[in-house]
């Protein structure tokens, strides 16, 4: 294969996953948390596709496509939740939304 080995793609994916995890843990706006989650999902997608190329097996790409669909569903639900929070005049802060905390 021309260009970098699969390992370089995996390292980029790991760094992206770390960035996304930092965003989820450090930021408190639900919008930014959703965006960071997208970064994490895409990092896992990159890993799946890299391994699909390495093994010459398309199942990884099929799995990545399913992850994409699930991510779209997750964004739809997440944005619905954020809009519902905004309509009830709640503060858009994931630390404040603690009514269900046990």
């Amino acid at each position: 294969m021309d260009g970098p080995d699969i390992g370089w793609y995996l390292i980029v994916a790991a760094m992206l996953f770390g960035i996304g995890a930092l965003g989820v843990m450090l930021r408190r706006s639900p919008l930014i948390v959703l965006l960071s989650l997208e970064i994490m999902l895409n990092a896992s997608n990159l890993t799946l596709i890299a391994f699909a190329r390495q093994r010459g097996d398309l199942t990884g790409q099929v799995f990545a496509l399913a992850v994409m669909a699930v991510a779209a569903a997750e964004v739809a639900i997440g944005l619905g939740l954020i809009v519902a929070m905004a309509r009830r005049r709640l503060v858009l802060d994931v630390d404040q939304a603690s009514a269900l905390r046990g």
Partner: protein
Amino acid sequence: MGNFLVWVVWFLAAGGCLATGVAVVNVTNPFFAALALIGNLASLAVLYLLLAAEFLAAAQVLVYAGAVMVMFLFVVAYLGGRADAPWAGGPPLLRTAAVVAAAALLVEVVVVLGLAWGDNLQDPAQVSDSFGSPAEIGELFLTDHLLAFEITSIALLVAAVGGVVLGTTPEKEDE
């Protein structure tokens, strides 16, 4: 020479990917965060192309950078100033713990990769030109992975209906 060009494209795509990722996590205005994520998704699509995943690269740009992010930008516009997300000061201990956890995750992955590098991560399989083409992916989806395909469609339908239900507030429920 073609090899060198691939490396250049790879560096640009990977660098753009990481830079826009940092931007998404770092900026206070969610509008710019969403724009940075579009850049992130686009450079990821370039990496997918280098990995012979043409259909996925196209789907990434169409579905993600197109549909999902437009939906996102609509919500940011709807929320207006309320969507602003300045860096609120949490407990410093928790922040340090978060950074340590993310760094530990990264170090673990890199160490495991370094251990596996010589054996499993070189000399990728030979693939034909049609590897990753819409025809091959579509055939797999309609034969081997038909159940996953149908379940995905149901999940999307449920999510769409759920989003609508969440978005319409009942009038009298709050009292």
